[in-house]
């Protein structure tokens, strides 16, 4: 078995592709830098991430792949699923080794899995867009907590920056402890260490803007009035609005 170690960054992964073609040995498994190796390792190689190498691989992909598919690589990378890096590696290798585009050959298990995983991440991105609930703080910053299954927040930021261009906002991933802050001009990545100010994702009452409670109550009242009692369907409700999102949804408090 051939093992490659790399630094678990996307650039590192692309460098690993470069090195593999350079060395003409292809890894069976990819490991992090300090991850213990399994027994019966035939060969072990440590990739040193280099920008010029990863750029060359990316340029190669730009020639061989549609933009949609390159986007898919990013989505799968952000899925953070075990083995997703090996999947990307195999996919890139299949792309380079084939004369023709392989992107639509969904009978191939790797290509199918890439597509399915990318779709799952995309679904999570959409759910972030759907279910983010801002709470207005006293300093006029709109704050929203999220904790998506996949690391889908960066994929949704463009949408929020366009939509809420005239208000300051923070969307914070409590699970991964990072977030984005928009200051009316730019979006910056931030890490907050004052998580005690929003226990369970809710803004402390003293930090809330004056009318925030009112609008939360109005929204809750509206939401409850919209239900048609004769049609109640809890199964469909949970299917469309999975329980894991309820904790941050104003209307489900």
């Amino acid at each position, binding site marked *: 078995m051939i093992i490659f170690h790399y630094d678990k960054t996307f650039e590192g992964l692309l460098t690993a592709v470069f090195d593999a073609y350079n060395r003409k040995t292809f890894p069976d498994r990819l490991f992090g830098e300090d991850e213990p190796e399994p027994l019966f390792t035939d060969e072990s190689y440590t990739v040193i991430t280099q920008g010029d190498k990863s750029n060359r691989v990316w340029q190669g992909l730009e020639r061989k792949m549609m933009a949609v598919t390159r986007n898919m690589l990013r989505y799968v990378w952000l899925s953070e699923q075990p083995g997703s890096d090996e999947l990307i590696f195999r996919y890139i290798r299949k792309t380079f080794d084939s004369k023709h585009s*392989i992107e*639509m*050959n*969904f*009978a*191939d*298990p790797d290509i*199918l899995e890439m597509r*399915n995983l990318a779709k799952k991440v995309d679904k999570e991105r*959409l759910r972030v*867009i*759907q*279910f*983010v*609930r*801002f*709470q*207005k703080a006293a300093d006029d910053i*709109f704050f*929203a907590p999220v904790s998506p299954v996949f690391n889908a927040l960066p994929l949704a930021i463009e*949408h929020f920056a*366009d*939509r*809420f*261009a*005239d*208000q300051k906002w923070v969307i914070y991933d409590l699970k991964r402890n990072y977030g984005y802050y928009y200051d009316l001009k730019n979006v910056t990545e931030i890490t907050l260490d004052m998580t005690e100010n929003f226990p369970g994702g809710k803004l402390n009452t003293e930090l809330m803007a004056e*009318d925030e409670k*009112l*609008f939360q*109550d*109005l*929204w809750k*009242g*509206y*939401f*409850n*009035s*919209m*239900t*048609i*009692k*004769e*049609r*109640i*369907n*809890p*199964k*469909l*409700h949970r*299917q*469309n*609005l999975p329980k894991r999102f309820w904790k941050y*949804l*104003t*209307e489900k408090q």
Partner: protein
Amino acid sequence: MKEEILEKLKTLAESAKYDVSCASSGTTRKSTPGGIGNTAGWGICHSFTEDGRCVSLLKIMLTNYCIYDCAYCINRRSNDIRRATFSVDELVELTIEFYRRNYIEGLFLSSGVINNPDYTMERMVRVVKQLRTVHKFNGYIHMKSILGSSEQLVREAGLYADRLSVNIEIPTEQNLKMLAPEKSHESVFKPMLYIQQGVLESSEERKKFNSAPRFAPAGQSTQMIIGATDESDKQILNTSAAMYQRPSMKRVYYSGYIPVNSYDNRLPALKQPPLVRENRLYQADWLMRFYEFKVDEIVDDNHPNLDLEIDPKLAWALHHPEHFPVDINKADYTQILRIPGIGVRSAKLIVVSRRYGRLNATSLKKMGIVLKKAQYFITCNELPAFTVNETSPEYVRQILTAKKVAKRKDNHQQMSLEFPD
């Protein structure tokens, strides 16, 4: 102040919720400098009520006072319900503040008719105008066009709203007259025509000048109440098919009748809203819009009503076994679309994947294509030939509907012996 707004909001939401349209799709609008919001072309649902319906827009009425007395409507003037009216400013503020918190995609504005149609429509137009011009709101706006309002007001509304709609409510004229004596199909078609003309003229203008104003860019929609009157599915679907002939008509919604005014003996006494029938009608609607079916293929004189037990596509396939089996490696896209259980996505997936090699049952399964129904209607490399033609439509129907029976708790296959004490 606060209590009052909350009560108003609840009252007017209660009054608006029976309108089923919730789409926020059909327009793409980027944000503008100094403006708020944008519109994503595919529509976004922000929440789901406990009945499983999507909440995308703030679906609200300006007022639920009404001069009309339509039997099917909760807001009819003879009903003793709580009444309320929003001021233009209140509604605008509510929309903006909800939007800023990502609760909604925009506004769905409807209203009861007060004083006269033009008076009502004029107030509604003021709301959307204020949103668009004063607040530079770029979110989605769906507005009802009030029956009997002037063409001029409809034209103005179209400049601000993304979608305009007029509900036909009852599929046949005669039944509409019975339940809503003050309305007629003509009074519904008139504003529809205004909208259509506005949309067509604007798209012509925009071909010449990029800067020409858009008019209701997401077109119009309408809604029919199902089960309040005695129309067959054939009549309903023919009405929808005629609607879809109109150039700007994007959607026809079907709303299973909920007995809101059970005391009115012109209306049937229903224990349950006809949810299955509603679902079948939507499926039939989809067949017309996305599967290239003609209305008389779905319902005809022999089968004037949709089969409640099986979906309309399966029903069609069982009536027409001569079209099957379809070879998924050779048949063209439209034929694949007609296989029961294979949707638009699956059909497209099959068509692109088979270029790389022949597909078999295993690869179809791996691709996530559900073969439960499709297996009786296709041939591919390895699939055992056990299709609708080797057996019979009756047999396939029996297998596909039998499972539900087996799931029941009282298992009829098991003989039960009763022992006397």
